[in-house]
Each structure stands twice: as C-alpha cells, then as structure tokens.
C-alpha cells in the first residue's frame, strides 16, 4: 500500500508542468480559461506540438511511437495537461484506430497510417453509429460489397464527430448479411476525399458543429483498406472497449473545471452566495476524490500488468456523471450571468457567461462511447452475473 508518487514521478510531474507552462500556446490558454471550444486549427496545432515531442500516442508501445511511459506517468501527464488549460487530444487516431492497426493491421497498413497518427498529421473520425444502429450497434446496415479490386460502400453514418475535419474514417460496414449480425461486420479505412462521400453538419445544443451525417454513394474503397479479415469488425470494436481506459474517467479535466469554477466564484460580483457555492464545490471535489482514487487503482493495476477489465465501465459512468454535475454547478452558481449566449462583453464573469455552452455540450457525454445505460447492461451481465 503506497499512495504517494515516487520521487522520480514527482520530478516527472514537475518537468511536465514546466513544459506545459512554457509551451501551451496562449490562444489555447485563452480559450480554456473562459471555456470556449478550440477549433480545428488550434486543436491540430496543439496535437502537432505534442507529436513533435513524441507525446501524442501515449499508450502505444515504443516501437510504434509511444513515449514508453508507465500508466502512472501517462496519468500525471494528462493531469498537468488539463491543469495547464490544454484540451484533451482527439481520441479517434491515437486512442482508437492506432491500437487497432498495430494489433490487427498488416505491416503495410502500419507503415502507411501509424506515422500520421503519431505526428498529429492525419485526422481521423469514427464511422460507427447509424440512424437505426445507435446503442444497438450490431444492427448496422452500411454495406460494403466486395468487387474485383475494391469494396463498394453504400449507406449512412451519423453522429460522426469531426467528420468535417477528418482525412480518414475507420468504419464498421456490413460485408455479409447472411450470417449472424455480429459476424457480418468488417473494419474498413476510408479516405474522406473519395468521391461519393457527402458530409452534412449537425449543429448541437452548445451551438457548435462537432457532429455530422456522412452519406456513402457507391464509394470505392481499396481492398487493402480492410483491417484484419472480413467479419472481424465486431471483434475489433470490442477490443477497443478493453483497450487502456485509465483516462476514461476524465479526472484531469474535472480537476481543471473545478478550478475554473472556484476562480469564477472568487471573482464573481457580490450577489453570489459564496458560502453556499463553496459547499457545493466541496461536494464535487469529494466525489472527484473518490473517482480519482478509483482511477489511481486502475493506473496502479495497469502498471502491475493487471489492468482492470469491465470494472472500468464504472469509471466511465461516474466520470461522465461528474462532468455533467460540475458543468451544471457552474451554470447554476452563475445564475443570471449564465443567461448570455453570444454577448462579446463580459457581464460579471467570462466563465459564467459561457457556462451553458459546456453544460449543453456535456449532455452528450453520458450518451457517446456507449451510453451509460448500455455500460450498466454490460456490467450487470459480465460482472454481476445477472
């Protein structure tokens, strides 16, 4: 039993903190200080900067471009990244398709795609959900017909985050409709510039454009863009669910949000009830502590070579609930200051003025990545034996 970082880890923490201090671009700091989204340009600038350091593909084995850090170091890095006001990196390349490629991909596929992910040069999106395949993902219908030298893809994806930014999509497609649903799914890499792809925006209630519909009409995808074998798509999708999830709880960003909330309360004008606000924040901090120590347990277990299995679904559920609670507290403590939507002037507090944007955005976090209800179904079956 040891709940302290080692001396080396503390030194590592300090070195990352110093680096963040010196290197997080000012325009990113400005965005995060008031709670504005970083757009494509800033996001990519940041990811490329990390890429240059070799700090983008954190969980990857060293041979593919990972930094060779322990889970504890990765956790510390994430914490210092968030506390410095830098955004989380986009998960689609580094956390999703990358590990799929170095686990299931051919040598050619690894050589072709991994470097762009490690450097932050290639942006990816995830083609999973469809209008009638949300939580029931296995019922997806987008079809890929095998022709002589290509797959012919027809169908529609939806809720595709950053499809309008992406160079590439990794996509679940149906290659066989004669077998059991799960067996007929394949994992395909699709260049977003291929003719026949149409990306239509979906504006979400935070007022921003993150989400898209993606339509495929006779899209020709080279055969060599199939990952693994035909019919392996479901296995690969499930693999991703068990890939390292030690940052899934969002502990680092919740720390940062709570620190912004405290700042807002400290700076806000006089009508705010500070004693009530401090107690509400204390409740959130205590919940965060419970989440953080559970997270520490998964980090420590990972470093001992005994990573958590389905238990980490609990981290996703608790972590997203807490993110929503923190953002809700920010809106509610701001009171009328949270009423502004696009007023360029500060009314009382910048942070409170923009609080509803994040609050609205985060309503999605208990839905994406497998809704919390689906996570509970999985836990009930796999852990509780119900």
């Amino acid at each position, binding site marked *: 039993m040891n709940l302290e970082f080692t001396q080396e880890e503390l030194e590592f923490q300090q070195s990352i903190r110093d680096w963040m201090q010196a290197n997080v671009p000012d325009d990113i700091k400005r965005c995060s200080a008031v709670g504005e989204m970083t757009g494509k340009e800033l996001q990519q600038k940041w990811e490329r900067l990390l890429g240059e350091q070799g700090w983008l593909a954190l969980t990857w084995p060293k041979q593919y471009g990972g930094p060779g850090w322990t889970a504890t170091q990765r956790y510390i890095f994430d914490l210092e990244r968030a506390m410095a006001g830098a955004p989380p990196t986009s998960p689609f390349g580094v956390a999703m398709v990358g590990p799929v490629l170095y686990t299931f991909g051919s040598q050619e596929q690894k050589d072709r795609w991994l470097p762009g992910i490690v450097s932050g040069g290639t942006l990816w999106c995830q083609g999973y959900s469809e209008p009638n395949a949300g939580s029931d993902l296995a019922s997806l219908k987008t079809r890929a017909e095998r022709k002589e030298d290509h797959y012919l893809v027809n169908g529609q994806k939806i809720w595709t985050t950053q499809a309008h930014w992406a160079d590439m999509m990794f996509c679940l497609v149906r290659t066989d409709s004669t077998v059991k649903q799960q067996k007929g799914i394949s994992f395909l890499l699709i260049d977003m510039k291929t003719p026949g792809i149409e990306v239509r925006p979906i504006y979400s209630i935070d007022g921003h454009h993150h989400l898209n519909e993606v339509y495929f009409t006779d899209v020709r995808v080279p055969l060599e863009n199939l990952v693994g074998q035909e019919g392996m798509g479901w296995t690969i999708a499930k693999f991703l669910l068990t890939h390292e999830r030690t940052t899934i709880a969002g502990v680092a960003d919740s720390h940062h949000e709570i620190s912004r909330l405290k700042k807002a309360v400290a700076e806000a004008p006089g009508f705010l009830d500070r004693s009530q606000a401090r107690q509400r924040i*204390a409740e959130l901090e205590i919940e965060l502590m419970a989440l953080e120590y559970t997270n520490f347990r998964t980090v420590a277990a990972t470093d001992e070579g005994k990573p958590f299995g389905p238990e980490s679904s609990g981290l996703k559920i608790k972590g997203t609930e807490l993110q929503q609670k923190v953002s809700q507290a920010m809106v509610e403590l701001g009171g009328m200051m949270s009423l502004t939507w696009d007023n360029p002037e500060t009314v009382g507090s910048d942070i409170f003025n923009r609080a509803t944007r994040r609050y609205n955005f985060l309503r999605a976090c208990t839905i994406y990545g497998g809704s919390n209800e689906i996570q509970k179904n999985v836990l009930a079956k796999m852990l509780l034996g119900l």
Partner: protein
Amino acid sequence: MEFNLPENTTLIADTARRYLKDNYSFEIYRQHLEQQNHVDASRWSAMQELGWFGLPFAESSGGFDGTLLDVAMVVRELGAALCLDPYVDTVVAPGKLLEYIGSDATLAMLSDVIDGRAKLACALYDYHAGYQVLTPSMKLNGKRLSGQKNFVPDGGFADTLLTTALADGELVVLAVPVAACETTRHRALDGGRIANVLFDEVEITDGMILARGKKAEQALSMLLAYLQALDCARMYGAAGALYQRTLEYAKTRKQFGVAIGSFQIIQHYLVDMFIDLQQLESMLLMVAVKAESEDASRRERASTAAKAYYADKAVRIAQQAIQIHGGVGVTEELDIGHYFRLVTHCSLTHGDRAHHIKRFAGLDEVHPGE
C-alpha cells in the same frame, strides 16, 4: 502508487473474518440487542488473544504496531458481521486518545487497555456543542467539573470515562470515574449501548487531568480522524454485506415467474451499488492510509472527504438494499434492516455529511495529485 494490502494486513483481515464467522452470528447479535452488556467474556478474551487489543498501538506504547489500515480491516469485518462488541468504543478510541496524549500517566493507562484490564470509554460529545469536539460545553471550574455528555458509547460497562471540558477557555482531557457521575444507559440506533452522563460538581484531582491546551487539542483531532476512518471501515463492511446479500436475493427471488434480477431496472440498481461500493473501497484505502498522517491538513482532508462521501453513498446502498428486498427488507427478522441501521448510525457519528462538507469547503487548496 500501490493499492495491494500488505500480506500481514490481509492475514489480519482473513483471521478476523474467520473468527467472526465461527463465533458470531445474526442470532447472537439479536440476543445481545436485548442486553445491557454485549460483551461475552470468552469472545472478548479471544479477541484480545487474537491481538486486536494491542493492534492499534505502537510498540513503544506496549502495542503491536499495527497500522490504521490493519485496524480498519478488523473493523470492516466487525461491520460485515454486524458485530456489536464495542472494540472501537472501549479499546481503540480510549486507547488512541491515551497514546496520542502520550504522557507517562496515559501510557500506563494504555497498558491496562492492551492487557484487557481497563474499562474505558470516550465521552466527547454533548448536544449543545454538537460535533465541535474542541469546544465542549462542560466546564471545569477550579476542582469542580460540571456539565453533561451525551451519546457516550460506553459499551454498557465502562467504569472510567475519558472526557473533555473547558477550564477558563482552555481545553482539558480528563479521566473521570463513572461512579462519580449520574449515568443513564440506553440502546443506540446500531444496537450498541450509549449513555447520557451528568457531571454535577464532580471533584477533580490533579491526577485526573490527562492533557491541556494544545496537547489536548492535537490529541483529539488525531483521534477524530482515526475514528472517522474506522466509521468508514465499519460502513464499508456493512455496505459490502448488503450488496452481496441483495445481489444473491435478486438472483433467487422470483416474481412474474422469473428472478427479479432479470429486470433491467433491478440490474441497474445493482450496478449502481457495485460502482458505489468500488468507489467506497477506494476512499477506505485512501482514508485508512492518510488519516493517521502527522500532517494535520492531509489528515483532515482525507478523513473529512471520506466521511462525507460515506454518509452519502454507503447510506444510498443501504437504502437500495431495502428497496430491492421489498417488504421483507423492512422487517426486524431479516439482517438487511439491521445493517441499514448500522450504516445510518455511523453516518452520524464523528461528524455527519453536512458537517464534513462544510469543513472540507474551509480546508486549504492543494494541487491535484498532491
């Protein structure tokens, strides 16, 4: 970081679990509920022989040098077994107070605790001062002690109380014979014994004053953090037992021709309990390590957060255990409702949720991860 229990701690926990399984039961618990004194002489001396009486204390104080984590694992098992034996109230609590004061006189008293000869309890609370332990309403005027203490967990048999008073605004810790006071004893929510004690101009000799001022304050604040961690340990034992029993029940209880655990709402309730229990376990390990820190701010941050969290989530687990059991969950015949009372009880001792939230809100900032 590393969260595995040390081998020795695991051994202590396993031994405690086995001992209680063989020597305690819900039936014994229910018999004791009706009695004034819960201590069964043979069980009490067996606990002493298991080393529990010396476990919380340093070797230099005559103890066996156990950590708070070791003691917490014993207390967790006591909670899981619904055991009423007043180990914490009459051994750990008074013993730790004596050890934290650490004078020749108190260490001599401590050796009687470890030997099982002492019959001590702590009388720290009264309903005027509430949880403000460092500013009790009892007064020591010269040689006369006047006031009252309530909610005194004396096991039903203590003959000496370690108690607190203000003497000209200065905190003092005293050892007062029960015989000098007016005591009424009754049953507490968890089934244990508590007393109201009236001190009516009790004459105090110099030897009865154990500590004063800063020393007394420091010893008490260390004691409270220690006991708050043990409250959590006891609640964890009970919440774990409730979860296990409720999961088992959901798999066996049939309605509409199927096990109720096949219903999605029940599955989700149970998953919520599982996840909360997982987080409670994290908080228990955290507080059991940090609540005996020499560093006051570390100690308080840990014990305050843990206690506030337990008073929310362990209570919620206990409530849901009853809900899922349905009607049978609210009966005196089933252990579920008794665990529920134990959890509620512990959520109110040594600071309730509101008290700890307020305290936490007033603590100093730390950088995340520190």
